[in-house]
């Protein structure tokens, strides 16, 4: 079967190159920004590239479970790498905003509390922190079933991240809406549709 063939191929692939690629990509982006390769407004371009890649990785991580359930494709082995690189990109995105974009500590706090899209983005980042900290085998063993519950923080985090993107756009723009729609769809696939269907009384 098609899915089996994909799964067999995937089993031979290690997960560690994901980390290496992410690190190399971020260094490459910063290098481009510093040397004029990101256009004449490199701070905005760098922020955008980091944030958008973070959102893409988040969506990829959220797609792992539905892909397995509905298509039989097993990417579970890559999920931790996808989650942790999401956190990596979002952290560097945040740092670029803090250090290069705003710079002034007083303005940082004012922006976080006064600007809804920054509040929302920051909340998404905060939710990712416990996920990143517990993304190791020791925590998984230690927390037991609590670890799985904790991982559900990724759902609101993804929603906040995509909303952050929609909220900072000017005018009615399709691309941010498409990302938000993707997140909503991936979350909707997790709702217990079947159970509800079963519980609807047949008159």
């Amino acid at each position: 079967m098609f899915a089996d063939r994909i799964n067999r191929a995937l089993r031979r692939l290690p997960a560690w190159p994901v980390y290496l690629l992410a690190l190399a990509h971020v260094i490459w982006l910063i290098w481009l920004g510093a040397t004029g390769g990101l256009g004449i407004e490199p701070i905005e371009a760098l922020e955008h590239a980091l944030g958008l890649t973070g959102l893409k990785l988040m969506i990829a991580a959220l797609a792992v479970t539905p892909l397995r359930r509905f298509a039989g494709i097993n990417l579970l082995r890559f999920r931790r790498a996808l989650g942790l690189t999401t956190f990596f990109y979002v952290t560097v995105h945040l740092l670029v905003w803090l250090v290069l974009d705003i710079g002034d500590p007083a303005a940082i706090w004012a922006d976080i509390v006064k600007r809804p899209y920054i509040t929302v983005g920051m909340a998404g980042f905060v939710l990712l922190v416990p996920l990143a900290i517990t993304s190791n085998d020791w925590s998984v063993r230690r927390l037991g079933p609590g670890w799985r519950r904790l991982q559900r923080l990724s759902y609101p985090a993804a929603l906040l991240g995509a909303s952050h993107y929609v909220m900072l756009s000017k005018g009615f723009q399709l691309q941010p809406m498409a990302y938000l729609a993707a997140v909503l769809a991936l979350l909707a696939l997790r709702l217990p549709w079947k159970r509800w269907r079963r519980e609807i009384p047949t008159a």
Partner: protein
Amino acid sequence: GLAGITASPARAETLEPNSWDDITSYNNFYEFGTRKDDPKANAGGMTTTPWSIRLDGMVDRPGTYDLAQILPQMMIEDRIYRLRCVEAWSMVVPWQGFELADLLDLAGVQDGARYVAFETLLRRDEMPGTRYPVLDWPYVEGLRLDEARHPLTIMATGIYGKPLPNQNGAPLRLVVPWKYGFKSIKSVVRITLTDSEPPTSWNKAAPGEYGFYSNVNPNVDHPRWSQKAERRIGGGLFAKKVPTLMFNGYEQDVAGLYDGMDLARHF
């Protein structure tokens, strides 16, 4: 001469213009896409010759005026102006253009006219960005008549002595240096004199965020970001933001237009 850089202390400093590349590759012109590099990539297909402007509404000589016939009657001057975008970035542009007041006089403004409405070209087959409902096309803008007649308000025809590139609003665009950049409507095809405040595109899209006046004002924040400081384009990855000046540095020239007005309410 280099008008507009001598009068007030705020502008006594010499403005260092951005490079041609900065000015022509970092643009907001949503008819060609929402990314800053979209206009340069996509605006090449806009036909700008011939070009005519409809002057109508409360004017003595309404009609469609051929730009080629208007230009010889106008006095083209150099004007080095700050351009402050509502998105909190700025650049300095060495424009060539003529005072809007002279164009209005060509048509003859009637008594009772109080506002000037502007409209951008809408040619969907040449403007890929208009396939999406980012804004309610065509782009429209407006000024109060006294703002429009102010000597700092110009219709620009060139940058650095060259004709305006399409991405900068060829062949003729408004430049109002004390207002956020989106007020300086590009590729103008129609100017209408009216007695009531005309609708403006960004105000229609988000009335709580973009007012009719949209004067540069560091004390009135945009609901989603601060307007206290701006990033000068072209400073690279480690450029610090610089403080935004009241009326973009043209306070001495234009503050009088708004005497007695609450600028937080009329933002």
